[in-house]
């Protein structure tokens, strides 16, 4: 098992480094597309903490994603760039606070009710921004100028530059992965897996499971907020669509497609989902049928659900797992 784990780690590290080299070879279009995918990967990893490691299936995760986007847009005076040092912690902090408050309520439910209540909270936010003038209604608001970090005269990081933005997002994605891996290896992470596996037994052992679930919910919401913040900066505008249940559904599909409970699976899922979406909706590839890309997307998800129960990550991890069990029996 050690060997296959190492092989997997090396594969993932190689893929991450390959991504690092990418902007030098390819066009701006693909650099931006990959930035978008890496943002979705952060979003999907944050959801995996709930779905794959705590056993909480949320269908309202876009609430945090969109809330952070609106937070940075509303905090920024028009025709000025958002200040990275204040707006990023503020947006992420707001999402954590929103998760803490809503978590107190949604975590009193479980199973299908949990799905419904998380969806309901996200829809409330959607209609708050859709039906009021708070965030420009259904048109949304623009962020015209992107943040820049300067040291004297030299620009250290200019997020208006596609490459700079790409590397900024890459660092964030790696940092989130490393952070979550560390957390999941801790006593806290092990307790979450225990709750996912058998919550009743965890309580009997003396774990106040509600607190653990709430902490996971807040952490997950905050990281989803980080993704939403980055997305708002990349696209330069936010509208209610980023809070809609389509968005919550898409990120859940990325997690399932990639393989929940693996952390790297949802990253693969984000790549697969967005790239498939690009391909299926590309008229140059599929002609007039590209209009109906969601049909093909649905078919792809069904195929994975039927034939790859462990998601795409299962393709990478499965041989190792089999070997481990055989070695154990022998």
């Amino acid at each position, binding site marked *: 098992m050690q060997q296959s784990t190492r092989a997997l780690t090396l594969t993932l590290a190689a893929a991450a480094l390959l991504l690092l080299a990418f902007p030098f070879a390819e066009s701006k279009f693909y650099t931006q597309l990959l930035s978008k995918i890496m943002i979705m990967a952060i979003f999907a990893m944050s959801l995996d903490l709930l779905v794959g490691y705590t056993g909480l299936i949320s269908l309202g995760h876009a609430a945090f994603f969109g809330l952070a986007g609106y937070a940075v847009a509303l905090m920024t005076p028009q025709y000025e760039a958002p200040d990275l040092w204040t707006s990023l912690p503020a947006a992420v902090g707001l999402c954590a606070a929103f998760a803490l408050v809503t978590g107190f309520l949604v975590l009193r439910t479980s199973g299908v009710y949990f799905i419904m209540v998380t969806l309901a909270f996200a829809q409330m936010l959607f209609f708050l921004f859709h039906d009021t003038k708070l965030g420009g209604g259904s048109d949304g608001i623009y962020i015209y100028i992107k943040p820049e970090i300067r040291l004297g005269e030299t620009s250290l990081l200019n997020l208006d530059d596609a490459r700079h933005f790409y590397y900024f997002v890459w660092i964030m994605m790696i940092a989130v992965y490393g952070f979550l891996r*560390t*957390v999941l*290896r*801790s*006593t*806290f*992470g*092990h*307790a979450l*897996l*225990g709750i996912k*596996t*058998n919550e*009743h*037994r*965890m*309580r*009997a*052992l*003396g*774990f*106040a*499971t509600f607190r*653990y679930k709430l902490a996971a919910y807040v952490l997950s919401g905050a990281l989803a907020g980080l993704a939403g913040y980055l997305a708002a900066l990349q696209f330069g505008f936010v509208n209610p669509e980023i809070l809609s249940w389509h968005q919550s559904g898409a990120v859940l599909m990325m997690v399932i497609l990639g393989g929940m409970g693996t952390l790297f699976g949802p990253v693969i899922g984000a790549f697969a989902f967005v790239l498939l979406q690009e391909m299926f909706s590309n008229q140059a590839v599929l002609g007039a049928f590209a209009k109906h890309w969601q049909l093909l997307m649905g078919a792809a998800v069904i195929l994975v659900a039927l034939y790859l129960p462990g998601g795409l990550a299962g393709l990478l991890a499965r041989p190792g797992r089999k070997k481990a*069990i055989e070695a*154990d*029996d022998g």
Partner: protein
Amino acid sequence: MGDPILRTEGLTKRFGGLTAVDRVSLELYVGQVHAVIGPNGAGKSTLTNLLSGDLPPTSGSVWYRGRDLAGLKSDEISRLGVGRSYQKTNIFLPFTVFENCRLAAQSRTPHAWRIFRRAEGFADINRLAEEAMEAAGLAARRDRVAATLSHGEQRQLEIAMCLATRPRVLLLDEPLAGMGPHESLRIVELIGRLAADHAIMLIEHDMEAVFSVAGHLTVMVNGEVLESGEPEAVRASPAVQMAYLGGEELLDV
């Protein structure tokens, strides 16, 4: 023997029209195994669930070290020092034996929120887990996934997990069910040893085991206590002879 560490007063649980536990009053003492026997459906498991907080009583009360446990949830009762094992094996099947015990031990320590340190890196937790595995006879199975254990070994793990939480009161719900004779003997011996500094409530159908370790015996029928007292006196009671086990099995011991 001093004050009971745990006692119940008129403990009652109704499910709709059915009274599963009917005005049960009993006392558990440190240093004593209190066996509860009775036919299936007598309310023994429900009684355990009431003591552990898995179910709230309809009426009556549970006192632990002079404290009324009313309204406390199962995790709070567990942290106070009341541990239980389940009649139906209730373990973490995908985890290793060690991780099952480690997780149980972890619930007792203040390390839960140290999120940047590996879970396996706490010597005090690991030691509790190792001791519990050793006591339950599972040290050789340390790295096996729980799902791959035999039924009897899973029962042993059930007890090991309970021990890893360092309880003062042990509620053991048919710990020997499904165990082979060798493991059974081992667990009976373990219960005897633990009785020295724990209060134990033992629900068990194996009469040989019950009479070898019990210092006090309660017989339940239809949710009510039929007889309670010294095991030999209870065994001789005509009411017990009539109502339970058709006389034979109890006399054979």
